[in-house]
């Protein structure tokens, strides 16, 4: 490994982003179908709706993870040598998991949701056979093993190169008073933090997955339902957050090319990332605020830390971005526009999330569409926008005629921002009106928002197709 030099694995990353873009588009179409069905615009059998809901949830979360991983791999590769073989092993395991999950859902008719909450997968009421649930979970196991390899492949060279995770996280600057010039670049600080907490999440997730699998095969072996729920949401929360925190590296690394000012690791930046590292793992109880049997201190912890967790990093990132943008001659093209939009969307999305994190509000809102409302903001306008921005940057034109934004770019960008914001807003409105989430069939009073949301979703899907097709075309053209 010593003779490998640090350089991004452009080909592998471009390939991953092609898959990610295509799957994002496909899963959005499935989301559109679900929303149209809720609005009575089309007819879906209820069991099929739940299959679609499961594939949409698992597919979107998995793809967000994949694209975040690709972003991080690309930029970490600028600083430390990485093993291309490990990356391909990761991709292979990931795709194997996708095949398992698709088979489980579309052939096995699994419809127990992406959270595979115990004991639902095992009590389908004959809607699916145990093997389908088992295959679904095996798909997760495969993806989890893939991510474990991925994080080993990122974490080990970072540890070697920077002399341990404490230094890679910049603790000598954050706590030891060392000169910030000695700190690792932002991409490394972020990668170190994500690697630590996502590995912990995967270890916990693997344990509950395997225990759930044993339960499926030998139903006598029950697991403790509350403990299982805790572990599942710990894993789920950490994993989806990791995808955001990996993707934001694209902002740190790409925006400086447009502003001409490097994104520096400061003391505050280090402290914010250390806060994330701790809090991302401590806040998951906000998913369990309805479980009255949980010890109250855990729920209060979940609530309080919810405020603390996102805010420092978000503030540091959004604030720095404003500072960097202000007074520099920013060049706007599709990539830079999407990246800036993503930071804005991510910021806006945390507001309704924090509201939902309040125990008193959560009692009323938790199972309403408020919840998909807030996470679709920071997923669509955050993670996915970062991924599309990264893709646009990967295939950016080098000729003068190709810099800046074309008319098509402008239209697609505007449609995406408007569509995503409108779509998520309709979820929030429905939530505020107490429309339950995860219902295949909606009452007539709820149908209006569903239909408006469907129209917004069409905008998102069409603009996404523009981004992805443009990427694919340019990929075919570009050398390498």
């Amino acid at each position, binding site marked *: 490994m010593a003779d490998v030099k640090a350089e991004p694995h452009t080909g592998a990353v471009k390939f991953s982003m092609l898959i990610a873009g295509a799957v994002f588009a496909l899963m959005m179409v499935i989301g559109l179908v679900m929303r149209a069905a809720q609005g009575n615009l089309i007819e879906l059998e209820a069991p099929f709706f739940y299959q679609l809901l499961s594939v949409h949830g698992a597919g979107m979360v998995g793809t967000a993870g994949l694209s975040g991983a690709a972003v991080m791999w690309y930029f970490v590769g600028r600083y430390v040598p990485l093993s291309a073989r490990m990356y391909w092993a990761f991709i292979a395991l990931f795709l194997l998991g996708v095949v398992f999950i698709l088979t489980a859902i579309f052939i096995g008719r699994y419809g127990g949701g992406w959270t595979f909450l115990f004991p639902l997968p095992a009590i389908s009421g004959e809607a699916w056979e145990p093997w389908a649930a088992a295959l679904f979970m095996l798909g997760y196991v495969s993806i989890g093993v893939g991510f*474990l*390899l991925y994080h*080993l492949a990122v974490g080990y060279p970072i540890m070697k*190169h*920077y002399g341990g995770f404490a230094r890679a996280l910049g603790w000598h600057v954050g706590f030891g008073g060392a000169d910030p010039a000695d700190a690792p670049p932002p991409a490394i600080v972020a990668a170190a933090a994500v690697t630590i907490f996502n590995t912990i999440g995967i*270890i916990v997730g693997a344990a*509950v997955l395997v*225990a759930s699998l044993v339960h499926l095969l030998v139903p006598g*072996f029950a697991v403790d339902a509350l403990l299982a729920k805790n572990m599942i949401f710990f894993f789920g929360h950490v994993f989806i957050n990791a995808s955001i925190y990996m993707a934001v590296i694209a902002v740190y690394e790409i925006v400086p090319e447009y502003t001409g000012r490097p994104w520096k690791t400061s003391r505050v930046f280090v402290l914010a990332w250390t806060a994330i590292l701790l809090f991302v793992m401590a806040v998951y109880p906000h998913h369990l605020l309805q479980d009255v049997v949980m010890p109250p201190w855990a729920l209060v912890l979940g609530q309080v830390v919810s405020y603390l967790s996102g805010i420092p990093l978000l503030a540091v990132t959004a604030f720095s971005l404003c500072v960097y943008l202000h007074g520099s001659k920013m060049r706007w093209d599709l990539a830079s526009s999407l990246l800036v939009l993503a930071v804005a969307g991510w910021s806006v999305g945390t507001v309704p999330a924090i509201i939902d994190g309040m125990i008193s509000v959560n009692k009323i809102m938790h199972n309403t569409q408020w919840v998909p409302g807030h996470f679709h903001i920071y997923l669509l306008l955050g993670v996915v926008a970062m991924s599309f921005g990264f893709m646009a940057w990967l295939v950016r034109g080098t000729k003068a005629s190709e810099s800046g934004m074309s008319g098509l770019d402008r239209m697609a960008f505007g449609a995406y921002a408007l569509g995503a914001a409108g779509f998520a807003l309709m979820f929030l409105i429905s939530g505020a009106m107490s429309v339950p989430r995860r219902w295949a069939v909606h009452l007539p009073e709820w149908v209006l928002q569903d239909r408006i949301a469907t129209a917004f979703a069409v905008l998102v899907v069409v603009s996404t197709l523009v981004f992805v097709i443009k990427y694919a075309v340019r990929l075919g053209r570009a050398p390498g």
Partner: protein
Amino acid sequence: MRRPLLILSIAVFGSCVLFRQTLERDPVTHVLLLLPALAVAGWLMAVSLGRHRLRLREADANALTLLGVFAILFWMLPRYIDASLTNPLVEAAKFISVPLCIGAVLAVSWKATHPFLRGFLKANALSMLGVLAFLYIHAPVRICNSYLEVDQQRLGYGFLFVALALSLVWAVPLFFPADGGATPNKHLSGRATA
């Protein structure tokens, strides 16, 4: 040859034989004390006999490590633990294979194993200890004929504590490596001590 280590190894092994029945009476001491002690005896033996003189290729080290892992998995199966209590042949196999196939083999192979494989195995060990804890604490049936359900639950908690302890022991050096990292960043060379 390092004689003190050899003597220590024999002493550990001897105590295992001597206190066999006491340790095996309770599944917690059986699985979490006797078996690890046997492995340690094998490890010490390999070290005292000069494992450093063996120059293993990485591929061979990986293979040996996997052999050791399979031996661990084998002795984690309740039915063989059970059998070792009733069948003297299985008991003898345990006293020979745990020191040799786990302790000695890993002593020889572990350091030369590829770091990615080592990390992967450690992460898996933590997950699987978690699974065992899950199952043993909540199992509705007696898993071993020779032990009671309450014993089995205590063992489940034991696995959980081992998992927590191991995760600390394994994680701390990642943050603060003893050698300060093999190749620290060049512009960090004038750094204060971490």
